[in-house]
C-alpha cells in the first residue's frame, strides 16, 4: 500500500464526488431554467395577444369612420379629409408644394448640410450625425425626400436582385423606429455599398422613437446606391396606421414647423415603395406574405401607388379636376367581403352593379393587402386573418403551390416578432426575419439579419441592442419583461372591470367575494377573448385565500385612474374613456387637420360626440364641458392633445400613497 495507490483511490473518490456534485448542479439549474422559460413563454403570449387586440381596435375604428362617411352624419366634416384622395393636382404641382427652397437654414445649425446628388461620405456622415443624436434640418429632409420620391416613381413593383459577382446580399426585417438596431447591424455587417447590397423588408416606422432617422438613412443609401439598396413596403408604411402607432406624433414633435409637409410627402413615398423583392429568381422577399391567389405577374402590373393606405381603398380615377365625392363612388371603393376573404372596411353588400373594373380594383387591393398583412399558419389552407383584420393566414400547401408555380425555393418575410430574431416554418420554405430587438420590452427578444450568397444558403446573425440590457442577466431579463407584461395585462383587466365583476357575481351568487380558480379563469376567457394561459398566470394577478379560493375584488382596489372623478364625471365614465384612450387619441389626431397637436374646443366637443356614437354610449354636454375645463388648457381656446391624454394614465394607488 504505497503512496501511489492511496493517492489514486483518494483521487478517484474526489473525482467521483466532484462528478456527483456537477450532476446535481446541472440537474438543479436545468429545472430553474425551465421555469424561467415558461415565464418567458407566457410573457410572450401576453405581449402578442395585446398587440393584435390593439390592432383590431384600429380596424374597428376605421370601419366606424367609414360608416360615418356613408351616412352623412354631422361629424363627417371632421374626418372626411382622410378619405379624400387629393389627387387633384399633378405631380409637378405637388413638387411645388413640397418645395424646400424658401426654407433657410440658420448658421447656428450644426447638423449635416446635404448637397445633391448625395455621395457615400454624406450618407455615412448622416449615420454618424444621428448616432450623435443630431437632427437633420427640415430643409434637407424635404430635399432628400423629394429626391427619393422621384427615384421611387421609376422603380418597378418587383425589385429584382442578383447575387452575381459573388455578392452576398444582406436582408433585414422590421426595424420599427429602433435606430440602435440599425446602427448595430451596420456595425456588425458594414454599411450598404456596391460590394454590400441590402434589402430592407418594411416596417421602418412606428413604435420606436427614431423612425424618421431610419427612413432618412435608408433613403440616403438608396439614392447613393440605387442598384444595391432595395426597399420593400411594410404594413406600417401607411399614414393612417401611423396616426395610431406613433410615427405621425414623432414627426410633428421633431419638426414643428414643417412636419405636416414632411408627412404629406412621406404619404406619397410610402405608396411608391416597391412591393416585393426577388433574388436570383429563386427567393421572394415580402413583408407580410402570400395567399392562395398571389401571382407575381399580376403584382408586376398593378398601379401600386394608388394603394395609399390599407384602410383607405383606392378611388377610381376621376376625369374631372373637381373633388367629386359622391356616395355612389364610395360604394365602388369598398373592398367586398367575399366568402373567405376578410375585409378591412365596413362590409356592405355590393349590389347588382358588379363590373369588371370594379372587380379588378378589388382584386389588386386585396392582392397588396395579402402581401403586406398575411401570416403563415401550420395547417393547410388559406383563411382570412381575423387577428390582424387584413390579409390571410396561409398554410404549407399554399407555400408549396406558390413556390412551384413561380419556380422559387424560399420566401423570406417579416411582420411577426420572433424571440430569436428569426424562425423557419413550412418545412424551412418560409423564413420569418425580425430585426427590432427588445421589441416588446427590454430583453424580450433578439433581432436578426440574414446574408445570402450565390448558393442562397441563409447565414444568420443575431443581436440584441444592449444599452438597456447591459448588466442584466438572463433571469433578470425574463423577470423584467414579465413585470411589464403583467402590468399591461392588469391594465387590460382593469379596463374590463365592470364586465368582469358582473361575470364573477353571476357565479358568486352569495356575494362572498370569493371564487374558485376554474370559474375565475372561464369568466376571464369569456369577457376578454384573450387566448392566454390564465390558470398558469393567476398567482400573479389575483390573491388567493388559504383554501384555494380567489379574492376577485382585491386587485381592482389597487388600481386607479390618475384623473380623479369630479362633480359631473363619474368614475365609470373616466374608466370608459380610459378603455378607449387609443381610439380617442387617434380620432383627435385625425381631427387635428393641420397636425399642430392642438384642437379647438368645438372640435373637441365634436370628437367626444363622435366617440359616444361609436361606443353607443351617452356622453352628456355637462361631462364634455367638465372635461374641457379640467384639462389645463392654453389660453388660446384650444386643447393640447398630449396634455389631455396624460390625464388618462393608470396609476397604482399603492405607489401613490408612498
Amino acid at each position, binding site marked *: 500500500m504505497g503512496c501511489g495507490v492511496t493517492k489514486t483511490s483518494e483521487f478517484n473518490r474526489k473525482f467521483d464526488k*466532484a*462528478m*456527483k*456534485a456537477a450532476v*446535481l448542479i446541472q440537474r*438543479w439549474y436545468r429545472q430553474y431554467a*425551465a421555469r424561467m*422559460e*415558461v415565464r418567458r413563454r407566457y410573457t410572450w403570449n401576453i405581449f402578442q395577444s395585446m398587440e393584435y387586440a390593439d390592432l383590431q381596435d384600429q380596424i374597428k375604428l376605421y370601419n366606424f369612420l367609414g360608416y360615418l362617411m356613408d351616412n352623412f352624419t354631422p361629424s363627417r366634416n371632421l374626418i372626411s379629409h382622410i378619405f379624400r384622395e387629393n389627387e387633384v393636382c399633378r405631380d409637378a404641382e405637388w413638387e411645388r408644394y413640397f418645395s424646400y427652397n424658401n426654407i433657410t437654414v440658420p448658421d447656428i445649425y450644426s447638423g449635416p448640410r446635404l448637397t445633391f446628388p448625395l455621395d457615400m461620405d454624406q450618407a455615412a456622415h448622416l449615420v454618424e450625425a444621428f448616432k450623435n443624436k443630431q437632427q437633420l434640418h427640415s430643409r434637407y429632409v424635404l430635399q432628400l425626400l423629394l429626391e427619393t420620391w422621384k427615384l421611387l416613381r421609376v422603380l418597378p413593383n418587383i425589385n429584382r436582385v442578383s447575387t452575381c459577382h459573388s455578392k452576398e446580399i444582406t436582408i433585414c426585417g422590421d426595424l420599427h423606429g429602433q435606430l440602435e438596431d440599425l446602427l448595430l447591424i451596420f456595425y456588425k455587417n458594414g454599411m450598404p455599398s456596391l460590394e454590400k447590397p441590402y434589402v430592407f423588408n418594411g416596417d421602418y416606422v412606428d413604435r420606436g422613437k427614431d423612425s424618421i432617422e431610419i427612413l432618412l438613412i435608408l433613403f440616403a443609401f438608396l439614392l447613393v446606391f440605387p442598384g444595391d439598396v432595395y426597399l420593400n413596403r411594410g404594413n406600417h408604411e401607411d399614414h393612417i396606421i401611423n396616426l395610431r402607432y406613433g410615427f405621425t406624433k414623432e414627426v410633428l414633435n421633431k419638426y414643428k414647423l414643417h412636419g405636416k409637409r414632411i408627412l404629406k410627402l412621406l404619404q406619397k413615398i410610402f405608396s411608391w415603395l416597391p412591393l416585393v423583392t426577388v433574388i436570383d429568381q429563386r427567393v421572394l422577399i415580402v413583408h407580410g406574405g402570400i395567399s392562395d391567389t398571389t401571382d407575381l405577374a399580376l403584382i408586376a402590373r398593378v398601379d401600386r401607388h394608388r394603394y395609399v393606405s390599407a384602410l383607405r381603398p383606392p378611388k377610381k380615377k376621376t376625369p374631372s379636376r373637381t373633388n367629386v365625392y359622391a356616395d355612389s363612388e364610395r360604394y365602388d371603393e369598398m373592398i367586398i367581403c367575399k366568402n373567405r376573404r376578410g375585409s378591412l372596411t365596413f362590409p356592405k353588400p355590393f349590389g347588382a352593379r358588379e363590373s369588371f373594373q370594379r372587380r379588378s380594383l378589388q382584386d389588386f387591393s386585396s392582392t397588396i393587402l395579402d402581401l403586406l398583412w398575411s401570416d403563415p399558419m401550420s395547417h393547410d389552407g388559406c383563411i382570412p386573418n381575423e387577428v390582424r383584420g387584413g390579409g390571410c393566414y396561409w398554410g404549407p400547401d399554399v407555400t408549396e403551390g406558390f413556390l412551384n408555380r413561380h419556380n422559387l425555393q424560399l420566401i423570406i418575410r417579416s411582420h411577426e416578432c420572433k424571440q430569436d430574431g428569426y424562425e423557419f416554418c413550412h418545412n424551412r420554405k418560409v423564413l420569418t426575419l425580425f430585426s427590432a430587438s427588445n421589441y416588446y420590452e427590454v430583453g424580450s427578444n433578439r433581432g436578426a439579419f440574414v446574408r445570402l450568397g450565390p448558393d442562397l444558403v441563409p447565414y444568420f446573425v443575431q443581436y440584441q441592442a444592449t444599452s438597456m440590457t447591459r448588466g442584466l442577466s438572463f433571469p433578470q431579463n425574463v423577470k423584467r419583461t414579465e413585470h411589464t407584461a403583467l402590468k399591461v395585462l392588469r391594465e387590460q383587466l382593469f379596463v374590463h372591470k365592470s364586465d368582469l365583476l358582473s361575470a364573477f357575481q353571476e357565479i358568486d351568487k352569495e356575494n362572498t367575494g370569493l371564487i374558485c380558480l376554474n370559474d375565475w379563469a372561464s369568466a376571464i376567457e369569456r369577457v376578454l377573448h384573450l387566448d392566454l394561459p390564465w390558470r398558469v398566470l393567476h398567482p400573479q394577478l389575483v390573491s388567493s385565500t388559504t383554501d384555494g379560493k380567489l379574492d376577485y375584488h382585491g386587485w381592482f382596489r389597487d388600481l386607479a385612474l390618475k384623473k380623479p372623478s369630479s362633480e359631473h364625471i363619474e368614475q365609470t365614465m373616466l374608466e370608459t374613456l380610459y378603455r378607449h384612450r387609443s381610439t380617442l387619441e387617434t380620432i383627435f389626431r385625425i381631427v387635428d387637420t393641420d397636425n399642430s397637436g392642438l384642437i379647438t374646443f368645438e372640435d373637441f366637443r365634436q370628437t367626444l360626440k363622435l366617440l359616444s356614437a361609436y361606443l353607443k354610449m351617452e356622453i352628456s354636454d355637462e361631462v364634455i364641458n367638465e372635461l374641457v375645463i379640467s384639462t389645463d388648457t392654453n389660453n388660446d381656446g384650444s386643447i393640447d392633445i398630449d396634455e389631455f391624454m396624460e390625464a388618462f394614465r393608470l396609476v397604482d394607488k399603492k405607489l401613490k400613497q408612498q
Partner: protein
Amino acid sequence: MADKYSADTIITETQKRISNAFDVFDHESNKTVDVREIGTIIRSLGCFPSEADLHDIIAELEEEEPTGFVRYEKFLPTMTKILLERKFRPITEDLLLQAFEVLDQQKKGHLEPEELTKYLTQEGEPFTQEEMDEMLSAAVDPDKNVILYKDFVSMMTFDDTR
C-alpha cells in the same frame, strides 16, 4: 382536513396543473406539444429529473413512429404518475450548497468562472455553451469576476419561491 383532500381531489387538481402546463406549449391548440419541450414542461411542474431520466420518459411517450410531437392523452397518465409518486424530488438549498463546496476544492469560498465551466461542461451531464453562458451571466459577480456560490444559491432559491 383529511376528507377535503381526498385522493380524488388530489388527482383532479394534479391533472389540472398538468393540463395547464401542457397548454402553455400547445401552440396550435390541438393537444400536442413538440417533444423537445417535454423536459421544460416536466420541470415547470416542480420536478428535477436528470437528462437520463428525461430520455427514458420521452422514449415512453413517443409514438411507435416518432412524429416529433407528444399527444396529451399519452402525456397525462405518465405525468400524473410522476407527480403522485413524487419522483425526481427537489434539490434543497443545503444540498446545492454542498455540491458547490465539493467543487471548491481549495475551500476558497468562491469559484472561478473557468473552474465552474470546466466542471459543468465536461463532467456529469455536460452543459451546452449556451446553458453555461446563461448560468454565468447570473452567477458571476461583476466586480470580482468570481462566483460567490453561497450568495448565488440563496438568491436563486429565493427567486424560485416568488
